[in-house]
């Protein structure tokens, strides 16, 4: 009897007859990102932890603000965009915190890091899922906002969608990074908003201005605010891709 009768792959059980000698090949980057994304979506669909709580919270914020003053159309156009983006921001902060916290329970982040995929794939997979969940929350919130604040959103929907796209990227990219940073920290519930909100101030201002411009009568094209949002998104994405590997290190 040979001392090495079978490969390591076959050794879990002597009854296993399948042999896997050439174990792996290179994992395409896009496949890795989509694999992480699909895992996040599957987990969320099964647990419904993030979407339900975040959407309920954001709807409550918009609902409560609508009772704090009697919004006429003019007042809504003036204050509404700010309230809307504060609700998005709070919802995003609430949603982003568990992004990496979920990986803590069984140290699954280590399993992802051990796999032969670039850390950027983990980041992008997580960021895309956060983007998707926050976008769904926003899609639920905007019609409610239009009804409660007596604002006609439909004619300017493409413009609002563009602002939401750029603004949401601006929230989820640094949010996902800080979620990874604070996942190991004590008082992380406090730490994440403390780190995140100051960085998101330019996003909040630009997104509010752009939304207000689209909702004004007549609607205006907020070129400067959109440029600022796009620029911030590019900077956040570049910094995130460059820093993520070392952030995961310890």
């Amino acid at each position, binding site marked *: 009897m040979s001392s090495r009768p079978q490969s390591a792959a076959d*050794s879990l059980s002597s009854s296993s007859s399948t042999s896997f000698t050439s174990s792996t*090949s290179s994992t395409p980057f896009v496949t890795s990102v989509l694999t992480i994304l699909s*895992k996040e979506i599957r987990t969320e669909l099964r647990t419904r932890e993030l979407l339900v709580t975040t959407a309920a919270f954001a709807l409550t914020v918009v609902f409560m603000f609508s009772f704090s003053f009697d919004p006429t159309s003019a007042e809504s156009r003036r204050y509404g965009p700010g309230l809307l983006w504060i609700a998005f921001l709070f919802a995003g902060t609430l949603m982003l915190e568990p992004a990496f916290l979920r990986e803590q329970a069984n*140290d699954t982040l*280590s*399993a992802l890091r051990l796999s*032969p995929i670039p850390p950027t794939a983990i980041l992008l997979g997580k960021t895309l899922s956060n983007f998707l969940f926050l976008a769904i929350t926003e899609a639920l919130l905007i019609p409610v906002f239009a009804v409660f604040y007596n604002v006609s959103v439909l004619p300017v929907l493409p413009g609002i969608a563009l602002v939401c796209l750029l603004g949401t990227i601006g929230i989820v990219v640094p949010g996902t990074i800080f979620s990874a940073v604070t996942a190991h920290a004590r008082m992380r519930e406090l730490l994440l908003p403390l780190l995140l909100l100051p960085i998101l101030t330019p996003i909040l201002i630009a997104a509010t201005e752009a939304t207000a411009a689209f909702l004004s009568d007549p609607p205006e094209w907020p070129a400067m605010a959109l440029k600022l949002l796009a620029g911030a998104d590019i900077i956040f994405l570049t910094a995130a891709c460059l820093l993520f590997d070392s952030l995961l290190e310890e």
Partner: protein
Amino acid sequence: MTTPTTPAISPGAGAAVLSASASGLGIEYTNVEKRYGAVRALRPTSLTIAPGEFVALLGHNGSGKTTLLRLTAHLARPTAGTIQFHGPAGPESASAARRRLGVVAHATMLYDDLTADENLQLFARLYAIPDPAAAITARLAAAGLLERRADLVRTFSRGMRQRLTLARALLHNPGLLLFDEPTTGLDPAGSGWLARELSRLHHSGCTILMSTHQGGEVTALATRTITLESGRVVRDSSSAAIPGCAPSSSFPGASA
């Protein structure tokens, strides 16, 4: 049953010895040190582990066992020193070695809200395993979990989780397996099962590095024991050297 033919550590064997196994990975630590601020988790350590060796890392909590395993798995970066892997074709880069690394830790590294099948599918995709369906079925069958493949991991017992953890770690046919306190939380039957699996893996030529702070059936399988204390190697059963043992000096050219 024959005893495993662990390549002997002999002076002058060089890289050829490190690459002796067709499937196992050899490891060479050269003055590897890890500090966390002022805390020296691992003092400068030089060791050589030959392909196919089954090494038990012994020591109390905080002795540096887990730190050494995390450094080996590239989950932490050494403060100083280098870790070199050697495959059948000679030295391997860190990324190439990572493809051939399997880790079983105290934490299961499994997603509780996914089924056993979904967990293995996830890692099969990440490792780009050819014919993942067949590989997953074989692994689940070997772990005795085929009938529970569609059940959420959160419904599994500790022993079942540990079997699935081993199935996940072996899915990509690793040449080096790192075990961090694998028997923690297992009952005697579970520990016995793990001991049998470790014995099979060892016979297959896989290099095994296992940390434990207790003896027993599993530790008895090891062909070499390295004892750590306060981040320092204080005993290496294969070299009989006490502190500062540096068997790497007996592998000229291995650090190329």
